[in-house]
């Protein structure tokens, strides 16, 4: 009898212990499929996520969405109904994140997207993003174009959502700067050749060409342009700011420009850059775990997710206990009111009207010199 009651008591204690005190976070990432190049580094950094925040145990429930929007939505549904999560993080690619938005909004749970995704206005309330919007990253590119007297620009981008976001951001920015966009060409990541597109762009002969592609996929179009004898400036976006660009592109990408978040060039940031400390910390820890040169834009976003949680969890704990609707709402309110926060990727300031949060001073322009990224002053 005594044994049984002790056992029972232990069980009850255990059950309550896990159910009440823990903060559960559902993370959906593209670990397989075409988006895995982005999802895997994010997951790597989540493996280094703090175990406890503000004295509460944090459980990350990480699921693979296979770069498939339908699977992403299923994951979100599981997080909400089965795991009763306090917050959803993900996904790492835009189309999947977009599919998760309505579910998170309906369950009144914060979705912290790891990709630049736009939401419908009525669901925007529960949606926050970790990456910079394309307009923020485009800012130093357009400024550099203005400064170096570029008059015409060609666009060579992915024929998918990532290309579209950039086209939408670049077109008005260029117009405002008085630069003409003379040709828009698209390609797919799986294409074996961009010769036709390169031909069309070089015959339009713009002063500069913007290549919109990600990871090692960004090298092929760059090479294609150089091989077709294009001599103007070539710009790349933040998704190309990985060592893969040089690994695949070799000599052909020398002199190319890449706009990026500050985290990837942590050591080169000037000492007065606000993100320097966080960025160096991210790079040291990540490269200690995954080898030198393994740093990248995407892993830094999950580093920043930890910064967000460390700030908002204590704020929300004052109002409610984890696992309740009040706690979820408190997390959301905390994100809007947490104020200026320094990320490894720039200075963030979410507000009730702005769930993107980064300022135009966030991105830095890099140039490929001798197979390395060098900050353009």
């Amino acid at each position, binding site marked *: 009898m005594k044994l049984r009651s002790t056992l029972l008591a232990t069980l009850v204690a255990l059950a309550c212990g896990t159910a009440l005190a823990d903060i559960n976070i559902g993370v959906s990432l593209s670990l*397989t499929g075409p988006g895995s*190049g982005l999802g895997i580094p994010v997951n790597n950094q989540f493996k280094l996520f703090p175990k406890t925040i503000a004295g509460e145990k944090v459980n990350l429930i990480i699921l693979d969405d296979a770069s498939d929007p339908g699977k992403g939505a299923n994951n979100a549904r599981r997080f909400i109904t089965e795991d009763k999560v306090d917050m959803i993080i993900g996904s790492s690619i835009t189309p999947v994140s977009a599919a998760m938005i309505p579910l998170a909004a309906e369950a009144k749970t914060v979705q912290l997207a790891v990709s630049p995704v736009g939401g419908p206005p009525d669901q925007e309330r529960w949606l926050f993003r970790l990456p910079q919007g394309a307009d923020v990253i485009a800012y130093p590119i357009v400024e550099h174009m203005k400064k170096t007297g570029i008059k015409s620009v060609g666009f060579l981008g992915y024929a998918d959502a990532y290309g579209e976001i950039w086209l939408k951001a670049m077109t008005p920015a260029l117009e405002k700067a008085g630069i003409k966009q003379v040709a828009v060409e698209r390609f797919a990541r799986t294409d*074996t050749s*961009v010769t036709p597109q390169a031909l069309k762009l070089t*015959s339009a002969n713009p002063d500069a060409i913007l290549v919109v592609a990600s*990871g090692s996929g960004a090298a092929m179009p760059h090479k294609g342009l150089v091989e077709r004898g294009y001599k103007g400036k070539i710009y790349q976006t933040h998704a190309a700011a990985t060592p*893969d660009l040089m690994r695949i592109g070799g000599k052909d990408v020398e002199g190319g420009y890449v706009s990026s978040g500050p985290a990837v060039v942590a050591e080169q940031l000037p000492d007065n850059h606000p993100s320097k400390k966080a960025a160096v910390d991210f790079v040291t820890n990540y490269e200690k775990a995954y080898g030198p040169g393994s740093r990248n834009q995407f892993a830094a976003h999950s580093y920043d997710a930890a910064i967000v949680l460390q700030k908002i969890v204590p704020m929300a704990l004052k109002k409610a206990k984890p696992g309740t609707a009040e706690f979820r709402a408190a997390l959301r309110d905390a994100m809007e009111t947490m104020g200026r926060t320094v990320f490894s990727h720039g200075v963030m300031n979410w507000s009730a009207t702005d769930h993107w949060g980064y300022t135009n001073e966030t991105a830095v322009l890099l140039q490929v010199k001798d197979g390395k990224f060098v900050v353009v002053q």
Partner: protein
Amino acid sequence: MDSTIASILLLDGLTNGAIYALLGIATVLVFAVTRVIFIPQGEFVAYGALTLAILQTGQVPGTVWLLLLLAGMAALMEFYTRWRHHGDLLAALKPALKTLIVPVLVALVTLWAAPQQFHLLVQALLSVAVVTAFGPLVYRVAYQSLESATPLVLLIVSVGVHFALTGLGLLFFGAEGFRNPAFWDLRLNLGPVMLSGQTIIIGVASLALIVLLWLFFERSLFGKALRATAVNRLGARLMGISSHAAGQLSFTMAALIGALSGLLIGPTTTIFYDSGFIIGLKGFVAAVVAGLSSYPGALVGAMFVGVIESFGSFWASAFKEVIVFTVILPVLLVRSLTSGHSDEDH
């Protein structure tokens, strides 16, 4: 659009078309002999290119481990079926060991050679050997016991094999792509057209392979046996041609063609673990143009697909894929209108 641009586009289209032609021919070959619509054909391309890329870095490619695993599975299956049929352990052990010997040998050589950083050509040969060894094993593990199933069932299995191979590709090679060094660093300027060494290699190699295949089917006993199986499986079996052996042989050839295509295409573009699918699919379109039955038809179809793709991306780059895959519709329409259908057809 002037003649300069047109000639550059044409050359680009024909170069890609040559690769699609090889894959199309492999698809036709496999379908004719085994009635398998072999969707994972493209995976062999990616495996070939990426195995070479990993060998280049001096590491052991994960495909070697997969090869050993598959060989083990195939040997066990072989052993079990023989044992159940004859009840003799020793007699069952022999074919099982026969299944094991080539893959294990290839794997051991690769394991030994990987850290030695041999010349590019040696590594290329190794990659071809590794990927080719996959052919009969894939057939043994996934298809052989379903030999007499309907083409639809075989197609469903193909989809499964495709997903399995792509997923394993991600595990072995990682999400980022690789680009192989060119076999021949030549750049020839013929008027407006820039001819690179790799383009010449692709053209010559494709042509040579097609001629070799033709010789194989016309002149060799094995080739004739395969043709016989393609025409009438039961009749061929009655004449002593094993349909198992025919299936394994056709898969070996398909894997060999795939691996070679991978080596050819590797230096011209970045290959990802999942790049094979869309390349293989275009080879499949070429094969469909040929009605899944004619090798010259597949060649013509592939050139057609390559050129359409090249001009399509020049005029409307965002709709390139749409244009290429829409081409299949009128072809299917014409085919279904002109050819009489009977249940005996495969």
